């Protein structure tokens, strides 16, 4: 029987990342190295302490993960590659947590990196222009979902603009974000930006990014003995699903999967953890295009079906709200390099749960949720808790 993973006796030893952005002048291996070292320093470890590593990226290059690990040292540790499109980072995190929880490793590392500026130089994502789904811009796929939402639920572009403005303003407070506006962004400014695919404007879409992030997991007793007095953050549970067939499934253009996938994956994760959405204090989701965030309010269980607009109108997913979403700016402002995106979510989860998210801290956050979809074909939901 398929069910979510519940983790035992594993805690976050360290997190590290390089601020996301267009980092053309920095080689990809140096981005990976710098994120890895930041996490090792945060964990007060060296690579000699790490028993196993999972590396992830969506670059077209093969085996570049091995090269990245060599930048951190050559200790003979096992290294395996993870690739799950936009969900890569969270799946690398899940595998590293399970490696420790299952007892096969005392310390495991998840390291992800990507350079979209390199991908663009090579002519774009996907299989080139001579494939059946090449002529359609990915933003269109999400716009199709937004248009149907407006038709079915009466959602207005203003709802989408309010969410985007929130994420831009969270980005201003996060030192790791790509987009850090120097002024408060208003929904009006978001609506006035250039139209990409109706109803999505440029400020409702994530940027292209370069970046790297790393998370180190270890046996909880090791973390407690090495880091006395520091709040301990534990992975609690994880679920991972691919698509389930239903009539109306779109096989070509797999960027937006069936919405039921997020709902079912979240349910599996909550059940494994023995908690519900009412217990979650801060959440992160795949807001590559802003209408996704609105849908995930409902699919992750924070609002009843069709009621997500009310959360937006009441400001419940922003500062001081009932369930702040994407406090590092999300994919829209923090950025979305691909592989490292999920580890950046974990990075922010850990800062929030440790109480170290200066300028954007959620009061007494104890339970965090991180969600991503990948290529519309995979979904993962993960829960982390603070234990004192």
């Amino acid at each position, binding site marked *: 029987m398929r069910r979510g993973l519940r983790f035992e006796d594993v805690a976050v030893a360290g997190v590290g990342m390089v601020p996301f952005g267009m980092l053309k002048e920095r080689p990809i291996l140096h981005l990976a190295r710098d994120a890895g070292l930041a996490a090792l320093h945060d964990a007060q470890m060296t690579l000699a302490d790490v028993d196993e590593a999972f590396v992830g990226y969506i670059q077209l290059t093969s085996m570049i993960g091995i090269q990245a690990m060599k930048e951190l040292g050559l200790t003979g540790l096992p290294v395996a590659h993870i690739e799950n499109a936009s969900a890569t980072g969270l799946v690398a995190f899940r595998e590293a947590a399970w490696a420790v929880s299952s007892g096969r490793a005392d310390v495991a590392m998840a390291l992800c990196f990507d350079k979209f500026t390199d991908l663009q130089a090579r002519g774009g994502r996907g299989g080139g*222009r001579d494939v059946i789904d090449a002529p359609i811009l990915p933003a269109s796929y999400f*716009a199709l979902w937004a248009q149907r939402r407006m038709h079915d639920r009466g959602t207005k572009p203003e709802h989408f603009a309010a969410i985007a403005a929130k994420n831009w303003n969270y980005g201003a407070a996060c030192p790791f974000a790509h987009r850090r506006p120097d002024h408060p962004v208003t929904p009006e400014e978001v609506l006035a930006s250039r139209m990409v695919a109706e109803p999505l404007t440029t400020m409702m879409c994530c940027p292209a990014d370069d970046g790297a992030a790393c998370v180190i997991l270890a046996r909880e007793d090791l973390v407690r003995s090495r880091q006395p007095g520091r709040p301990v953050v534990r992975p609690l549970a994880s679920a991972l699903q691919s698509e389930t067939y239903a009539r109306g499934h*779109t096989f070509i253009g797999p960027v937006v999967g069936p919405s039921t996938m997020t709902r079912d994956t979240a349910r599996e994760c909550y059940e494994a953890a023995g908690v519900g959405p009412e217990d979650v204090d801060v959440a992160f989701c795949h807001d590559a295009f802003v209408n996704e965030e609105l849908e995930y309010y409902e699919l992750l269980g924070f609002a009843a079906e069709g009621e997500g607009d009310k959360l937006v109108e009441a400001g419940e997913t922003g500062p001081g709200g009932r369930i702040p979403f994407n406090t590092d700016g999300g994919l829209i402002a923090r950025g979305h390099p691909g592989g490292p995106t999920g580890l950046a979510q974990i990075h922010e989860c850990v800062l929030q749960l440790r109480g170290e998210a200066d300028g954007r801290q959620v009061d007494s956050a104890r339970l965090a949720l991180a969600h991503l979809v990948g290529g519309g074909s995979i979904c993962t939901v993960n829960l982390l808790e603070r234990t004192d």
Partner: protein
Amino acid sequence: MARVPIEEGFFRIPDDPGEPPRLLGSRCPNCGEFFYPRRMVCAQCLHEGCDDVELSTRGRIWTWTYCHVPLFGRKDTDVPGYGVGQIDLAEGPRVQSILFGGPDDFAIGMEVEIDLETLRETADGDEVVIYRFRPLAERSA
């Protein structure tokens, strides 16, 4: 000069330019479900060995948008924008496709018909084509 598909195996181009192209799909002989594109294993009942079929040339818009950014795969073509839709065919498959028309020409539920759009010419003078759907009302107007 011939018309060649952007990628083989997804649609058939009739010899008569007046005839619409046909999407190449599958039908499961066990449960009857239809699919686009072709597949061997039924996605609904896992039966091995779906039958090849050609799908309807008409359908209804389930959702649509108008994209204002030049096409991803045809930067050699100068277009101000293009419609994109998901079309429900009568047999069941939902097909994502370019739509022919302007930003005000589409609506959810509207009936559309498939035809071809030329993306570019090859060095040999062939036209590279992809399918698109156009509103039936627009065609008769």
